[in-house]
């Protein structure tokens, strides 16, 4: 009996398919001749079957995978097509919901970001054309370098799943990944492209702390707008600034200012944003928060050109889908 008890562990291994050769043959022979071991084997099998059924129920009852994973299957299928076929498929995928995409440039960018940015690193290269640059020049007056020139491109790098990085570059197809230092903000942190490591390095902003309120990662219009107004001093010079500190702000030791851009001409409706609210920490004299109250009055004047590229660290982006948005 003692010997047979010792066989239990080996019976388990036998049923698991982990015995081979002579050892397996000897044990099988023993079980055939030993009723006690045969009974043990049957019990082991029953336990095993019950456990398997229970575990299968667990797997069957698993919740759906997170949204960031689910659409990947479709994307993976597109990738599998390879080359031109994949590009064509992506263009089609963008073109199908055209009516919705054309609701606004923000929607174009947002849609593209939602579609692609959740799966992997992608870049949206957004070219703002037409009157936008002229408008921004008028907003910023003499300091024209603060406004993007028509040929400049807002590069929006979406690092899945949460980061949104952006940078303005005049030559997006140039060798910027290797010999041009890049830097920018993702709304709360500064980042720099490290050409040696071929990666993005985050650094705390120098002397400035900014948070964009209400932007849940991919609110790209806010980021884009903010990209235009990185020179805050100039922005303030061009705007009327009125203190709007409320009682709760005073209790929290904050000063809040309402910032209203002054139109170049009275009645000019072509504005990116109508106002912004800056929260200033008087103790540190830093702007803690800037909330842009975005108006879309001007966006119908824009032509947005969005290109979607997959970013593979250290490699040039591969372009999938040139896409033009020309609002009515």
């Amino acid at each position: 009996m003692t010997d047979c008890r010792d066989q239990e562990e080996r019976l388990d291994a036998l049923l698991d398919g982990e015995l081979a050769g002579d050892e397996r043959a000897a044990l099988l022979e023993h079980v055939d001749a030993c009723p006690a071991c045969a009974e043990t084997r049957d019990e082991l099998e029953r336990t095993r079957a019950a456990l398997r059924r229970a575990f299968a129920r667990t797997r069957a009852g698993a919740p759906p995978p997170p949204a960031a994973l689910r659409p990947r299957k479709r994307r993976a299928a597109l990738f599998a097509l390879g080359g031109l076929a994949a590009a064509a498929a992506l263009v089609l995928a963008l073109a199908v919901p055209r009516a919705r995409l054309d609701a606004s440039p923000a929607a174009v960018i947002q849609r593209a970001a939602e579609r692609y940015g959740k799966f992997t690193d992608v870049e949206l290269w957004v070219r703002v054309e037409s009157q936008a640059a002229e408008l921004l020049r008028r907003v910023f007056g003499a300091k024209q370098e603060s406004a993007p020139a028509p040929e400049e491109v807002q590069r929006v790098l979406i690092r899945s799943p949460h980061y949104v990085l952006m940078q303005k570059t005049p030559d997006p197809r140039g060798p910027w990944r290797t010999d041009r230092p890049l830097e920018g903000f993702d709304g709360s942190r500064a980042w720099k492209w490290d050409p040696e490591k071929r990666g993005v390095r985050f650094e705390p902003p120098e002397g400035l702390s900014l948070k964009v309120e209400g932007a849940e990662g991919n609110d790209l219009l806010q980021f884009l707008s903010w990209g235009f107004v990185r020179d805050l001093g100039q922005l303030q010079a061009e705007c009327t600034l009125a203190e709007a500190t409320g009682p709760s702000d005073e209790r929290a030791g904050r000063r809040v200012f309402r910032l209203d851009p002054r139109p170049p001409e009275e009645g000019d409706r072509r504005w990116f944003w109508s106002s912004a609210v800056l929260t200033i920490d008087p103790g540190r004299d830093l702007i803690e928060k800037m909330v842009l109250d975005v108006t879309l009055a001007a966006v119908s004047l824009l032509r947005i050109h969005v290109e979607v590229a997959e970013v593979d660290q250290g490699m040039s982006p591969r372009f999938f889908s040139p896409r033009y948005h020309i609002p009515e």
Partner: protein
Amino acid sequence: MNHRREVVEEALREWPGAFGLAFHLLHDRARAEDVCQEVLLGLLSAARPPQTDRPLRALILRMVRNRALSELRRERPGSLDDDEVGPLADAASPDPLDEASRREEAVAVETALARLPAAWRAMLYLREGLDLSYAEIAEVLERDVDVVRVTLHRARRRARRLLGSLKGDPT
């Protein structure tokens, strides 16, 4: 090969299995889902592919297992070693089927599993739930194959004892 693509494809395949592993360790659906999401999305957002020669499946399962055990330790500090005895697993406790005789087999099995140490449940799940070989289980749990064999046997013996009255109904 873009490692994220590879990770996503593997993660989609492994999602139910990974969830099951986390669930049987934590016995809490919401927390199990959280653990799996954290692990898989963490892998996805990593800037570089995991530096390992191990199969991605084993890596994902091991990360889920470790993350779930960390959760358990936070909730219940102390040892979670294989030798740990579940709080209700002493011989004097009533047979689970006494309580669950009118219930489905599922309830009895769940009751029995709940009385096993978490590490044993994980091992049983990897073997019976995911059909992993001893070598693969050893890979996931970072244990020796012999330890896997011995522990599996002990876990099954305990489970069998707890399910003692589950007679008949062979495979």
